[in-house]
């Protein structure tokens, strides 16, 4: 699993404060620790910084490149800020995060990525928002994004498609559709495009204590349909354990068996079944309940584990 570490994100109060103080040490430390925890790239989401992007983006790039060698993922809606960062990057091939199928973004961002030889994440979202159905999302990739990239002679190996994870709390019907979108995207092109997702979006608006479990179970399902890249928290040890279990087909413990079984069921186009779980084990029961909300079988409620 190629993890793009998500922890440099302006939504975090600590990040906000460190940025205000131009505390380079803070960001360098956070980047190093993410790489040590297994991140293969580092996402930088500091917002659009409309007023001071020309100073902030080169500054952060320089700080991070002084301590890590991995690709930096420039995560902003501000196209000028993207370019300010690209101009400063000297080490690994960067990733632009992101374009969508909205005409204005699709016109500018791929050209920028091409000019600097960057990889680029493309969201399967058009001007009218994010479609629910898997095939409508795949259609945005195959019908709009890819043809446009071919027109401008964009190197396809640099394209990463993100079919957009939405939260089980309020957008539950999107959750199973996203799994199918990932599955279909793997057949959408030859060679198959890289597919990446923002995993923790699946638990947005969910009480903090429930988020890691929902993320892990969804991860197992997505690995079942071949997900190999994601923006996620590399410090989540239990998540990393699930990745290791599934990648190495380690079924030496009951929990490892359960997560492998979930991935296997989804891979086969099946649903997890009650007999896959030892319902007397509270941990497995919680995983079973989580599969049911993620597949939109049971309506999500914040207290779904208690009922």
């Amino acid at each position: 699993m190629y993890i793009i570490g998500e922890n440099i994100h302006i939504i975090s109060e600590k990040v906000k404060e460190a940025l205000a103080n131009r505390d380079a040490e803070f960001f360098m430390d956070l980047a190093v620790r993410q790489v040590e925890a297994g991140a293969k790239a580092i996402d930088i989401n500091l917002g659009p910084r409309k007023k001071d992007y020309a100073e902030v983006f080169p500054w952060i790039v320089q700080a991070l490149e002084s301590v890590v060698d991995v690709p930096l993922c420039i995560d902003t809606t501000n196209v000028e800020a993207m370019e300010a960062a690209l101009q400063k990057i000297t080490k690994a091939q960067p990733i632009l995060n992101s374009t969508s199928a909205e005409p204005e973004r699709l016109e500018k961002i791929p050209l920028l990525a091409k000019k600097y030889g960057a990889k680029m994440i493309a969201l399967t979202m058009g001007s009218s928002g994010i479609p629910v159905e898997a095939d409508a999302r795949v259609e945005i990739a195959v019908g709009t994004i890819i043809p446009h990239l071919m027109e401008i002679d964009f190197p396809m190996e640099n394209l990463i498609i993100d079919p957009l994870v939405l939260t089980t709390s309020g957008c539950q019907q999107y959750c199973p559709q996203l799994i199918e979108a990932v599955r279909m995207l793997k057949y959408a092109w030859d060679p198959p495009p890289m597919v990446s997702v923002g995993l923790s979006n699946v638990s947005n608006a969910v009480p903090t204590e429930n988020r890691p479990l929902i993320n892990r179970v969804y991860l197992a399902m997505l690995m079942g349909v071949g997900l190999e890249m994601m923006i996620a928290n590399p410090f989540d040890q239990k998540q990393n354990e699930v990745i290791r279990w599934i990648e190495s087909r380690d079924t030496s413990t009951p929990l490892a068996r359960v997560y492998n079984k979930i991935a296997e069921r989804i891979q086969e186009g099946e649903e997890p079944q009650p007999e896959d779980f030892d319902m007397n084990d509270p941990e497995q029961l919680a995983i079973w309940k989580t599969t049911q909300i993620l597949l939109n079988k049971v309506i999500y409620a914040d207290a779904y584990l208690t009922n």
Partner: protein
Amino acid sequence: MPIEIPKEKWTGKVRVVTLGATAAEGGTRTRVVTVGGQACMPFLHFEHPTPHPPVLAIEIKSRPPTDWSPILMETWGEAIRNPATWAAAAEAAGAEMFVLWLTLEDTPEEATQAVRAVLGASGLPLAVFGPGQAEKDNELLVAVAEAAKGERLLLGICEDKNYRTIVATALANGHLVSARSPMDVNLAKQLNILITDMGLPADRIIMDPTTGALGYGIEYGYSVMERLRLSALQGDSMTQFPMLVTVGFEAWKTKEAKVGEGVPASWGDWQQRAIDWEIGTAMTLIEAGADILVLRHPESVKRVKAAITELMTA
């Protein structure tokens, strides 16, 4: 050629809930109302019989309303002056139960008096709703619940802001709660879990998923109710509750019902249109799975009741 009608096989069913208690059960009601028990989507009798048809409640207020349509004011006439005469008129108009809606001006004593007056005027089951401000609702409903101990009143509005107080008083005094959530399946289920976690038996909960009037968001309300009901039939115990909808409240605030002048002539007769709006709203929500419909106009009650009778025998 014989045609085989496909049938859904559901694993779950809606809980049966009874409102009102007779003398034998510790109350003073001469009639009770029972809703729920469905094991299929509405009126699919070929899949499963409908054990309890939808029930029609008439909304009355603790004091004469100041913002109601003149059409309603004229229809109820003098009866509106106090809750007891209004209740008697509503029963004569075909109500199977009442929703007594309290107001912000009421003191706990006045609220209690109004409840006693309605209970004295009719033997039908009663729901008592606060004005919809959490703190005021708590103040009024606790007093009412204690004064009418054992009557199996339906207490509302019980929402995430105040459910603890309302559920506690329902538990202590033998009443039911009407659990209201803002047109959202996740929040509806969450509130039901929180209420049952407090120890209120599940057969003392009605859910109010909130709805809109015809032309004013009813499709959202419909989808939420349909989803909750499908989930109940699929076996999710925390959605297996009968549903109440405040049809009159929604329908009579629409422009079509409220405005008699300055509208296109093609809108037709005002009174007819206003009543049709309430009926159209009610019938739509009945198909979405509504179990208790709270109406305002006697003509709506009459015609919706006739439609339910037809649906039950169709």
